[in-house]
Structures are given as C-alpha cells and as structure tokens.
C-alpha cells in the first residue's frame, strides 16, 4: 500500500505492505535507524517512538494504523533536548543500543510530568530494558533533565 506518514513534522509517502510494523518502515525504507529492533513483540522498548505524543512500540504497530498520526522518533528530538544533554553529562550509555528508546520513553514522561517522582519513573520506564544495566544513570539523568526543563 501507499501511505502518507507524518514523521518528525514532515509528511512522507511510503510504499509498504499494510501489516509492516512502523519500525521496519523507519529503518529499512526511510533509513531512520535511531529506533532499534530488540524483541519484535513490544517487550523491550528499544523501538519506542511517539504517536501523537504517546510512547508506542514501533515494532508492533503496523503502518496501516498510523494514517494521520503525528510520529516523533529519536531523530525528531533534535539532539539538543535536555534529556540528551543529561544522558551525555551522566555518561548513561554503555552499549547504547536501547538508549533511543529509553530517551523517547523519558521524553514522553517529562512532557506529561515535568517533575516525575521515582514511582513515576518506574511506571513510565519499566517497559524499557537495558541489558547493560544503566538504570540508575537513566534515573539520575531524567531527574537532571527535569530540573533543567523546570528551571
């Protein structure tokens, strides 16, 4: 099918099978490879992007469900987001493979709750696995970014 997707503020015409998950359209067709493949069944969060501001798992969302939806990926975050600065400041990444998804989940959290509690962070981030175990630095970086954004 041919579908118009609104990604990072641009409308992009995509040719793909209707059941193709957004993740593979982003990665294989649009060459936007920041969103990662980790599990394919919405269990690890490495593919997290925003759909109308809500965090979704791109690996399990077929493109046919996304007509008229505003999609934001890690590429759309701009590289200068307070979260990204905090990630660098705390040297959060180790292997780094899950971090796009972690940052997108955290960005959706901060948009909703500018000063998240530990419980808020647990709730928003628990779907995002980090096998390197950067969890405590992710938590510190989220709090740091929240403080920057609220200042």
């Amino acid at each position, binding site marked *: 099918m041919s579908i118009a997707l609104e990604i990072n503020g641009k409308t992009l015409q995509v040719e*793909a*099978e209707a059941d*193709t*998950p957004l993740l*593979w359209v982003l*990665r*294989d*067709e649009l*060459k*936007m*490879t*920041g*969103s*990662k*493949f*980790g*599990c*394919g*069944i919405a*269990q*690890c969060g*490495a593919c997290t992007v925003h759909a109308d501001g809500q965090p979704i798992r791109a690996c399990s969302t077929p493109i046919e469900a996304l007509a008229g939806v505003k999609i934001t*990926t*890690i*590429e759309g*975050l701009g*590289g200068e987001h307070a979260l*990204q600065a905090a*990630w*660098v400041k705390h*040297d*959060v*990444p*180790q*292997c*780094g*493979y*899950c*971090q*796009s998804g972690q*940052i997108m989940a955290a960005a959706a959290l901060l948009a909703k709750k500018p000063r998240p509690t530990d419980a808020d*962070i*647990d709730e928003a*981030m*628990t*779907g*995002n*696995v*980090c*096998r*390197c*175990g*950067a*969890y*405590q*630095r*992710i*938590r510190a970086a989220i709090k740091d970014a929240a403080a920057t954004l609220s200042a």
Partner: protein
Amino acid sequence: MNIQSKLSADPVGPTATRRDLVVGAIVTSSALLVGCSPMDLLGLGAKKQDFGSFGPFIKIGTDGVVTVISKHIEFGQGTHAGLAAIVAEELDADWSTVKVEQSSANIKVYANLLMGAQGTGGSTAIANSWMQLRKAGAGARAMFVNAAAAKWGVSGKEISVKNGVLSHASGKSASFADLLADAGKMTPPAEPTLKDPKTFTLIGTQSVRRKDSKVKSDGTAVYTQDIHMPDMLTAMVAHAPLFGAKVKSFDDSEALKVKGVVQVFKISSGVAVVAENTWAAKKGRDALKVTWDDSKAEKRSTPEIIEDYKKISAAREGSKPFDVHGDVAKGFDGELTKFGFDFPYLSHAPMEPMNCVAQVDGQKVKLTYGCQGPTMDQMAVAMALGVLPGAVEIETLFAGGSFGRRASPSAEYVVECALIAKKVGGFRPVKLVWDREDDMTGGRYRPMVRHDLAIKVGADGYPAAWRHTVVTQSVMKGVPMPQGKFDATAVEGALGSPYLKATPVVDAHVAIADSPVPVLWWRSVGATHTALVMEHVIDQLAAKAKIDPADYRRTLYKKAGADRHLAVLELAVAKSGWGSALPSGTARGIAVHESFGSVVAQVAEVSMKDGEPRVGRVVCAVDCGIAISPDQIAAQMEGGVAYGLSAALYGAITLKDGAVEQRNFDGYRVLRHNEAPTVETYIVPSGANPTGVGEPGTPVIGPAVANALLVLTGKPTQSLPLVKA
C-alpha cells in the same frame, strides 16, 4: 569449534581444498609448525597495511587532533575511552579533542597480547594494552619533543608538553599541528621513557569519560542492524527447533510468494530466506515449511539433565582433580556438612540480537558488524568459504552488547551470513538478521552446572576438609585454544579460592558432561556459579559457627594471605555500615570474589516485595589495579551488578523435550528499572598495573543477595534463579 568436522561438513569450492587443509593444520597444530608463528599463519592472505608516522595506534591530523586506534571493540565497557586515555596520558594530548577509531582486523599488529589473537574478552582490553599504548603514546611524545628541540635549538629535557602544546622556558611554544611534519620525520625511540604513574594528570581523574555518549544519545551511533548498502539484501534463517537437528526437506512455495522475497536455499544451519527488506524476510521465513531430522538432537528436559548431573557428580564419573591437597584419605572422617547447587542455562540476551553484513565474491570477503573476535571469526569464515583467513576483511562496528555472546569460536552467525552472501555472490551485501527468538533459542548459553560439597568443620568453626565436585558442559570443547588438563574456566573461582587455600584438606574435582546444546562464556564465565557456591557456603558455615560473616572471611583471608580480598572486604564493610541497624524486613548480605585479576566485594541490602527479593542499595568495593577511569569503573560495577542480579533473580533457559521454553523477553525475565538497585562504587587505591572491570562486578551480587536472604528468611539458596517461574 571442531575444525575437522567443520572441514568435512561445510562444502567448499574446489580451489579451496588445499588452503582449507593449511588453515585446518594451523588451527589444530599451530604449535607443531616449526619456523612460523601462529600470527604469521593466521594472517595469511592479509593485505599489507601502511600506518602513519606514529604507528598503528595513533593518528594525528593536520589540525593536531589526536585519534587513537582501538584494537578492541566498544560494546559498552568504555574500552574506547580507557584505551584512548592511556595514549593521551603519555602523549600529553588534549583529552577534550582526542578521538577514537576502530582498528581493522590484523592479528600481526592488533593481537590481544594476553590471547595471542585479536579479540576482546576476559576483561583484558585495558590490561593487555596498558604497556603497549603507554609506549605508543610516549614514543609519539618523544617525536614531538625531539622535533621541537631541533627546531628551537634547545635540549629536549627542557621542553614540557601539556594538552598538545609544547613549550620552553624561553617562551617558545608550538602545538602538535605546528610540529606535525617535523615530528613525523623523527625516529620513535625504541624504549621511550614512560611517566611515573604518580605524575599522571589524566588517568585516574573524573575527566576520563566516554567519547561515544553523544552519538549513543541522538540515534546516530551505527550498529550492524543499521547498515544499509546499495543493493543490499536482508536474510533470515529458519533454524532447527532442537539442538543438533538438521534440515531433512523444505517447501518454499509459500515463502517465494511473499512480496520482496528473492531467494530461498538450504545452508548448513537451516534454510535461508533472502529478501529485499527485513519484514519480507521474516514473512518469507514464517511461510516456510521445513521438516527436520532430529535423530541426533538433544531431547531431554531440564529436570532430566539435572538428575543426570547429580548422578555424574555422585559417581565422579570421568572427573578430574583441580585442587587436591592434604590428607584426603583421613581428612573426611567424621561428620560432614553437605551442600548442593543447581544452575540453569543462561542466555546472554544482549539488546542487539546477533547479526552480520557480508559481501563475498570468490576469494574476496568483506564483513561489516560488531565483531568481538576478529581472528576467530576470520578463521571460521575462511574455513567455511575456502579462503585465507587474512583475506577476510572485517570492519568492526559498535555492538549492542555482547557479554560473551559475540565471541563464539564457531562464529556461527557470521559463518551463516558469509555462506548466504557466497550463494548470493557478486559481492552483493547481505545483512543477516536474527530476531530475538533466533537469539534466545540459538544456544551458546552459560552451561548448566551442578555443585556438590561435603565439608568437615573443625573445632574452631572453620573448614578442616573440603570436598567439592563440579559437573558442567565445557565452554572450551573444540575451541582452538590451548586445552589444559581440565577445563579451568569451568571451576575458576573455586580453583584459586582463598577458602580452599585456607583449608588443610581439599579434594576438588570437575566432571564434564556432554550435550548437543552449544555453550559459551557468559559475563564472568566460571565465576557465574563458583562465586555463589563459595560465598554462600561460607555464610552458612559462619552462621553454623555463630561468627559474623565478615569476621569469618577476615580470618580465612588472613590465613590464605589474600590481602586484596581483605582490602575490598574492609572497604565494603566500612562504606556499607555493616552491622548497623536496618529497617525491619531488610537484611544485608556480603560477598567477595576475585575474577579476571580484579577483586570485588559487595554488600547488598535486600527486602521482600510481593513475595520476591528486592535489592535496594549495593555497596561495591573493587581493586582493579590503577584506575584509569573511575567513572567507567563505577559504570561497569553498576552494569555488572544489574546483569548478575538479573540472572540470580530471574535468569533461566529451560528445555522441554529438548526445545527451549523461553523465546523472548516475555519468557526470559530480565531486570527492569523498578527492580534495579542503586550501586555505590569505591575503588581501592593501587599502584599495580590495571586489570579488568567488565566482568568482575557480575558474579558477586548473586551470593550477596543469597546471603541476605539467609538472614532474612533463614533459608539457604540451593538453586538459581531465586524467583521461580
């Protein structure tokens, strides 16, 4: 990897037979080939590489920017930054502008000096590079100093270097950029003068931070999965549902109807579906109908394997001694305290499943991927394709974790990709994608292990005689590395334990069991199980003797002369507030373990939440020699604790009639944000050469938690994981 069986199993082209035999001979009997070093032989076919004036580890641009070439992969452990800092320290480069590049595959220049082949593992990246890179940095510094001395007409001894700028008391000053051409003409000293570590200005400071955090936070870091090349195809493979099964026949009629599927064919490991993109490859593979010959496959279930291991252990069937001392015949007379432990298979489950990009055209082979063991992979691919190992060109990318998984001696996923690319031919790029299910059901697990102990306790409450039997599969089986009298990796941590050293009579054996389930080193290897056994037994013995477990260890470490163990113990005890009151329902557990030359002590604070152990605070003390990057050492302790805790609490791969029961993160539970502890890391000051930190933090947390649970519940741990599925 069994080279000989591979030689007969994987068909190769007619031009290749002789070379294969050559390579096979190299691998199986390199020590016997007189007059040629293994490095020469394993590098056969390699292009000659020209390096710049400053050698294979340092490039300096006309802008004066220093780029350090890393022979080791960066897959999380901060290795790139650590290696670069060693060079920058001796070179007195401007750390803020230092860059890191990944080296090519070249065993002659880039071998791991502790392995004799190029590869990253065993927490050796820093340790083996330490003197090599200090000399490289100091040599380049001397070239700049000599160039400036000649130009200014002063003695080199009067010139100082700081942040890439040379200066003299006369007021003369010049940057690396200014002096680049002159310095490049200087001959580097054969034995450059190294700094006294006491004068280091970069190493050991908080300035040594990662160089890759930015690209790993904005989505631009490139992993294998992200590679796109013109005309590239994507392949997935239908793998056997049972270990040891082979393709009997397949029907690809439905698969070929999937839009985007280009080719379907059989390879040695299954049936490959080659397509224009990943989704088409997956749908094509889903549509395949494959019949498997499982006559030689593993068909046991996990409980049967455990029973088999218990029998082998009880009979010490085919066992070999790894530590026997004292009067074994009489030492065990009297009452014995017995302990038994069962450990499951574990999947490494790095976030990026296995993958590779290969291009093959006759003898021309190029691989692009997160390569952990360039030499092993070159050998395996050379054998499979019938080319010379050095001719296998490898471009190494970041890898999304490994934890040992990508250092597979059989290089099965790399070979799989190379075989598919060979069939596709014409140097057309093929990206092999394993999905999570391929990765998790694909074996190469931390092996299952059984430990049985019988300990006679002396009148003083300390062990007088220690009988120990370990049963496991060997990760060294068929690996082209020196095989000792027994597989030391199966018992390391029990082998060399200060507790055994302090015990007058020891009778410790290891028996190797066999199975078609492939096994592999898993972050901290033998210590993944020996640390829990040794440390948890010690706490149970201490409890029996009514001695505080920290005191109990002190006594044994003093007896064994284990000074480094004692030092980390004291540091962890002091920082954790050992012995002070905790909220009701929370208990502390302590464990100390040495692996890969580093000694780590951890104190974990554990409570129960919803019927499961929850770890709050972990105090970690580490002695890893000279600390290059305190921040990254802390990061590795944090990561090691999370990885080890994940396995201790939840990790298990189980078999049902031979089939793996966990296929993805829904079945293979891993530690998540809400379950992660807060780790505080303290480093023992040391002047010794650095050892590793990638692995040693991992095995200590399991026993620390088990020991806390012993206090909290009174129940000893007899098997992992602690949370039963």
